[in-house]
């Protein structure tokens, strides 16, 4: 059941990205281009998503177990440290470079976009490099 709900959540998430236009890197870059002709759409995507997710997370935070009976794995980390800031700054630079963040890139991959494949392979390689750096003594 939890596999099925994960599949469904991924599917709805992807449909949301397509409906909102955020699967398209050009539209994302038009949001990030404050000094140009600015397309504020992405801000409304965030607002819509946060507005709907907020009550769900309020409910989830009060539960010991998920509705399917599995353990809750909501984040417990609280610290704002150098890793969080450095990693996020690096991620933003990559996001601005191509207009892809992880979810839209995977949706674009499903649309058989060759450029999305290049991005996703590089992204997975980057995650592999992170794992290697982490594994170093």
């Amino acid at each position, binding site marked *: 059941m*939890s596999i099925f709900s*994960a*599949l469904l*959540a*991924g*599917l*709805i*998430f992807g*449909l*949301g990205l*397509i*409906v*909102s236009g955020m699967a*398209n890197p*050009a539209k994302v870059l*038009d949001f*990030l281009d*404050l*000094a140009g002709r600015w*397309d504020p759409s992405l801000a409304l995507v*965030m*607002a819509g*998503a946060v507005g709907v*997710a907020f*009550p*769900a997370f309020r409910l*989830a*935070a009060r539960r010991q*177990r*998920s509705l*399917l009976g599995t353990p809750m*794995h*909501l984040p417990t*980390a609280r610290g704002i440290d150098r890793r*969080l800031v*450095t990693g*996020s*700054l*690096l*991620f*933003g630079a*990559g*996001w601005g*470079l191509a207009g892809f*963040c*992880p*979810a839209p890139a*995977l*949706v674009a*991959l*499903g649309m058989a976009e060759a*450029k999305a494949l290049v*991005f996703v392979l*590089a*992204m*997975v*390689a*980057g*995650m592999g*490099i992170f794992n290697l750096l982490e594994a170093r003594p």
Partner: protein
Amino acid sequence: MAIDWMHFTPWSALAGGALIGVAAGVFALFNGRIAGISGILGGLLRPAMGDAGWRAAFLLGLVAAPWVYGLVATMPVLQIDAGFAGLVAAGLLVGIGTRYGAGCTSGHGVCGIARLSPRSMVATLCFMGTGFLTVFVLRHLLGS
């Protein structure tokens, strides 16, 4: 700053955003997890026991979304302007950065802010900041 009214799509943005919120909510309530795509994908590279199935299922749903969307509507055309080198550099930065920063636009930006997590709010300000800066440099200083 001038708003691009021609391309501003408030209603589809809100509707699509609401769907993303539904997905994140379903995932939190039914699976007890954060719909953070970089974390779900990154965890698949070194899966713990019994941990790979739901990760693969979520990502499959994401990749399959265009096929399902295509059954009821015409798929929008994507515009990807970055060249090969740009895509590789961007992918590496996104891959390393999201793992170091423990999240991306979905995990920190949507789920974290919806949980009122200060940590995620800081992360979101950071990646938005360098996102704005990178596009400013590329489009307005380098003129690409």
